[in-house]
């Protein structure tokens, strides 16, 4: 990763702004953590399993994008998380058409494109299954500080897959907005997360500076 002086300054400024603004910025849900200005913009190169075509971040420009890592042989946590995302999308109503949920498999060996396509189709039209080569998956996970491991079964142990549980939210321009945590826990704050997501959908990039100034004076 190239460290240019300018982007370093930008990052420092962003961190400082984050510190200063955390007190007066509109409060996110307890389950959402702002990563604005900290996380690199959406970039990926993978295969969309529904069309079998290669996709990059450019394919999702203009959409609010949710990025989540999982695998299809996950009968409990992944469907529960995707189910909760589905609840959030239903709460958004017509706005949900501007949202794409990317479900990236961390277990491409077992998740054949057809299986993954069938799996994501169960969770509605907004969810797209992505499958990459090990290198593509590695690069994407590294970019977003995502942990995953696939441990092949032995004589005494079963197949074990672990993956980060958080969901990244990117705005229509591909800039990271916040991380949703705990969508796999008992009682997620569906209403709060929906509000935060609605704000991202309604973001007008041209007046973002103005609205930012507004937040300074409003509280």
């Amino acid at each position: 990763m190239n460290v240019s002086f300018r982007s370093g300054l930008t990052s420092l400024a962003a961190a400082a702004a984050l510190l200063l603004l955390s007190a007066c910025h509109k409060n996110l849900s307890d389950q959402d953590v702002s990563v604005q200005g900290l996380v690199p913009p959406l970039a990926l190169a993978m295969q969309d399993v529904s069309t079998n075509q290669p996709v990059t971040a450019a394919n999702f420009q203009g959409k609010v994008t949710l990025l989540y890592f999982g695998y299809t042989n996950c009968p409990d946590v992944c469907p529960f998380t995707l189910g909760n995302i589905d609840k959030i999308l239903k709460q958004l109503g017509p706005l949900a058409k501007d949202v794409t949920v990317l479900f990236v498999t961390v277990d491409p060996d077992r998740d054949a494109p057809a299986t993954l396509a069938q799996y994501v189709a169960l969770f509605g039209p907004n969810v797209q299954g992505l499958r990459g080569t090990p290198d593509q998956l590695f690069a994407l996970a590294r970019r977003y500080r995502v942990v995953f491991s696939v441990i092949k079964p032995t004589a005494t142990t079963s197949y074990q897959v672990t993956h980060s549980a958080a969901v990244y939210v990117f705005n229509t321009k591909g800039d990271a907005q916040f991380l949703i945590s705990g969508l796999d826990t008992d009682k997620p704050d569906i209403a709060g997360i929906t509000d935060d997501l609605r704000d991202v959908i309604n973001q007008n990039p041209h007046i973002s500076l103005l609205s930012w100034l507004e937040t300074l004076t409003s509280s």
Partner: protein
Amino acid sequence: MRFFLVVFWLLPLMAQAATPELIVVKPWMRYLLASIPAAGYMELQNPGAADVVITGAASSACGMLMLHKSSDTSGMAMMMDVQSITVPAHGSVTLAPGGYHLMCMQPAMKPGDKVALTLSLQNGGTVAAVLPVYGAQNAP
């Protein structure tokens, strides 16, 4: 009326005789695809004075049934085999998404079905349950 009263009087005795050691509340199953394990959930209440230990489960609609536990203690979603689940005396254990669940390895069912399964207990007893099957989106 008298008949019902008699039954009412007999209930505790019958309970002891039939030993329904666990009460199954709100059972359900999430089925996704035939190639993907289905997950079974329920609340188990133990009205007795002794802990009840579940050591296994079986159903003709599942091929193999396993006791599993998902956890997200450190931000990592992971799933582990569990040898047994203990329902404490006068207490309860909930099998729910993100925690304990039954993993139905080769599901032969479809949403709308009712799946019968049997929990086997450490003391040799069994508990029967019938789980309505839901799909990905219409889980209760």
